[in-house]
């Protein structure tokens, strides 16, 4: 027996459909802009120019994208194992604790290139640990991972408040944040790379975490599609029964996948702390963990897609800030609406236009998909 369903060529699946979704999101966003009495075309120009027009904008866009790559990868790794990790926000936040402790301890004695690896390990370990408990509860007790990871977001927030008004804060300070890190915990900027292309940058926070994010994207690709562990995760993700049959331990694979996912979420904390603000402050994650869900969905859980989607969201953040600045009628909240629309169309309604595109392709006759390639016997 064979369940019939039409298939699209890969370029349409991964290229055309996201582009259509995006276009629709922007058209609807355009109407919203019109509603508040601004010119949507000028708004679009400001948005894109703000994000990519000048070196400064590009650097900011990529800075935001860096965080989203980590959180998107985190969601994707869990999703390949059939798990919905909504806890990236908390896992990233609690990782700030590890980073704070490491940086405060070593920034006066070690150079940045020694502090950085230690902080990477600390952030990944804290994130993994924060994912471990929900993972254990899911694997052993059947407590649903969505519920427990959400709860752990709240717990992380409380723990961080406790730490930031307590032992992480310098005794004399009033602000709930650590002292500013010394040079030994400040990551080098990457702005010079953009300046190589002739652009001028006054100051922008783009730093080597961006490279780390790209490396992690590659490693995640390797993990999912090229390692035995990734194979086991995908098997479980598609069919727990088949995984049981294949001798894959449910407990083990859930815990490992969630810890990797948590570690990636933890690493996103490096970018805003060591890379930008040079401290650990209250609410420094500010929703990036949740954006990761949209990024992962839009990127179709594939690292390449995730990097592209992260850049798109980086653009919305950066260009949106410019827009709010340039067009007084468009407030910060409007920007959130536009971002919400992108998430809605690209993430949640991802399959809305698929049937139409498929019908379109079908009417073009599938012969266009290379039938005379005649490989194999072909029954």
């Amino acid at each position, binding site marked *: 027996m*064979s369940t019939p369903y039409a298939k699209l060529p890969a370029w349409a699946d991964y290229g055309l459909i996201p582009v259509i979704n995006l276009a629709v999101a922007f058209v609807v966003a355009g109407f919203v802009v019109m509603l508040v009495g601004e010119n949507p075309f000028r708004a679009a120009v400001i948005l894109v120019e703000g994000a990519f027009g000048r070196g400064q904008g590009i650097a900011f866009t990529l800075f935001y994208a860096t965080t989203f790559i980590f959180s998107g990868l985190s969601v994707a790794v869990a999703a390949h194992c059939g798990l919905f990790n909504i806890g990236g926000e908390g896992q990233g936040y609690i990782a700030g604790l590890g980073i704070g402790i490491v940086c405060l301890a070593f920034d006066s004695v070690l150079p940045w290139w020694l502090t950085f690896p230690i902080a990477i390990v600390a952030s990944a370990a804290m994130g993994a640990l924060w994912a471990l408990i929900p993972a254990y509860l899911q694997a052993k007790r059947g407590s649903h991972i969505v519920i427990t990871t959400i709860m752990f977001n709240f717990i992380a927030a409380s723990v961080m408040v406790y730490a930031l008004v307590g032992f992480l804060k310098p005794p004399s300070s009033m602000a709930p944040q650590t002292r500013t890190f010394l040079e030994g915990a400040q990551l080098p900027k990457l702005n010079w790379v953009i300046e190589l292309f002739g652009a001028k940058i006054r100051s922008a926070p783009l730093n080597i975490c961006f490279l780390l994010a790209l490396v992690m994207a590659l490693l995640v690709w390797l993990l999912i599609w090229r*390692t*035995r*562990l990734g194979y086991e995760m995908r098997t479980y993700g598609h069919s727990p029964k*088949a995984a049981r049959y294949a001798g894959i331990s449910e407990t083990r694979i859930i815990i490992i996948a969630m810890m990797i996912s948590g570690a990636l979420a933890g690493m996103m904390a490096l970018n805003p702390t060591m890379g930008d603000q040079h401290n650990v402050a209250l609410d420094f994650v500010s929703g990036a963990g949740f954006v990761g869900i949209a990024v992962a969905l839009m990127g179709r859980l594939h690292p390449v897609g995730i990097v592209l989607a992260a850049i798109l969201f980086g653009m919305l953040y950066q260009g949106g800030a410019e827009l709010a600045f340039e067009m007084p009628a468009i407030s910060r909240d409007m920007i959130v609406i536009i971002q919400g629309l992108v998430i809605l169309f690209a993430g949640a309604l991802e399959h809305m236009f698929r049937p139409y595109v498929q019908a379109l392709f079908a009417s073009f006759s*599938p*012969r266009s998909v290379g039938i005379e390639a005649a490989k*194999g016997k*072909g029954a």
Partner: protein
Amino acid sequence: MAQAAIELIGINKSFGAVRANRDINLEIVRGTIHGIVGENGAGKSTLMSILYGFYQADSGEIRVGGKPASIKTPNDAIALGIGMVHQHFMLVDNFTVLENVILGAESDALLKKSIAKARSELERLEREYGLEVDPDAIIEELPVGLQQRVEILKALYRGAEILILDEPTGVLTPAEADHLFRILKQLKEQGKTVVLITHKLREIMAITDTVSVMRQGTMVATRVTKETTVGELAELMVGRRVLLRVEKGEAEAGAVKLAVKNLTVKDSRGVTMVDDISFELRAGEIVGIAGVAGNGQSELLEAISGIRRAVSGSVMLDGKPIDLTGAADPGELRDRGLAHVPEDRHHVGLVLAFEENENSILGYHDDERYLKGPFLDIDAIRNDAKDKITKYDIRPADCRLKTANFSGGNQQKIVLAREMEQDPGVLIVGQPTRGVDVGAIEFIHKRLIAMRDQGKAVLVVSVELDEIRSLSDRILVMFAGRIVGERSPEASEGELGLLMAGVEQREAAE
């Protein structure tokens, strides 16, 4: 009288390089039962999916009742009076029968009115065609045979004049299949038209008026059923003579490989499914477990292969016990030489979303041959998959194709190739040829017998009595979780049938 209900003219359909249907012409006469047979991947399901609006033909014409029809979606097909019963039912498990029947055909905004209307309509249909089901039963609590009846009711409720059934008996017990055929005959008497796809040539002979044969995407012949034979059909399908019963020599049974002792297994609701079973399986023999589906065979297989917890008893593999606590590692059992072809290939034996080559290592993915350190050795895996594709004639011969896109029989061959090629000492097989065409059945049976002749121990569970009789050296009959008798393969069908129905046991109890 010979008025065409459906005419298909020059239908073509390709999936990439695969030409699933080429230049198909077919005429189905109103008020008849028309069988379609053909090898796995011959294009039967594709053709019917085109008729039902799931796929669009690349070219060709469909006429319904003499008029050209454009069928773009299943709704178009339903409007034209065409209904389809899928092999995998499309029912909402936790809805009642009635709710399922009206789903998508609710006539009023208020459900209550629709339900009342549907109830009386349903009662009429039930009376007319002998389709008894309790309208208020929950779907998941019904046996498959009844679920299928609900599918038929759904189609009739929507006014189907032409009913397509794709391999309807694959999941049915013989009694359920008989009942289905009685229903189909009723439908025919009422003037409905039935298209029946099946691999069981006996069913074709028993119930159809006309039969069409497909091979590799083409329609090779149409015959009046009364004027043809099983042998001719098999030959037309495969393009060569087929042995419907594979020859085999005497078994030379050796040492005990698998010893099951007082095994008791309960299902998740606590019902005893396997009840104090003991038997031995020796090297160099095939033991067949016959029985009507649902008499504990599935649970027995799962317990032996370490997937399901047993309540009590023991299973020894080569003299060493198998962990029956439910914590057994099926991977470890594989290392010890136990291979298992599960009954449910779609959810257990395969990951349908994987590429073919990824499935060809499922369960053996920690074998050094397929690994380079923690990494998968992609080249080794694909080459290995290609070898199996050649050896087992899996079509299309593309190890990178998604498994869901293989036809049912070819999916089965993917599982069998994987398990048999590991050269296990003990092979346990559930429903080896479910949904598999005659040519492939011959092939699979030959391979199972070859394994036996190499001194392997083979345990076969099948609901096909023919299959059990032609393969086994010894037959154990299971009824209500117990082994109610052991017979030689020469035992008559009637005798085995009675055992399977639990008749002898009841007599003994009295």
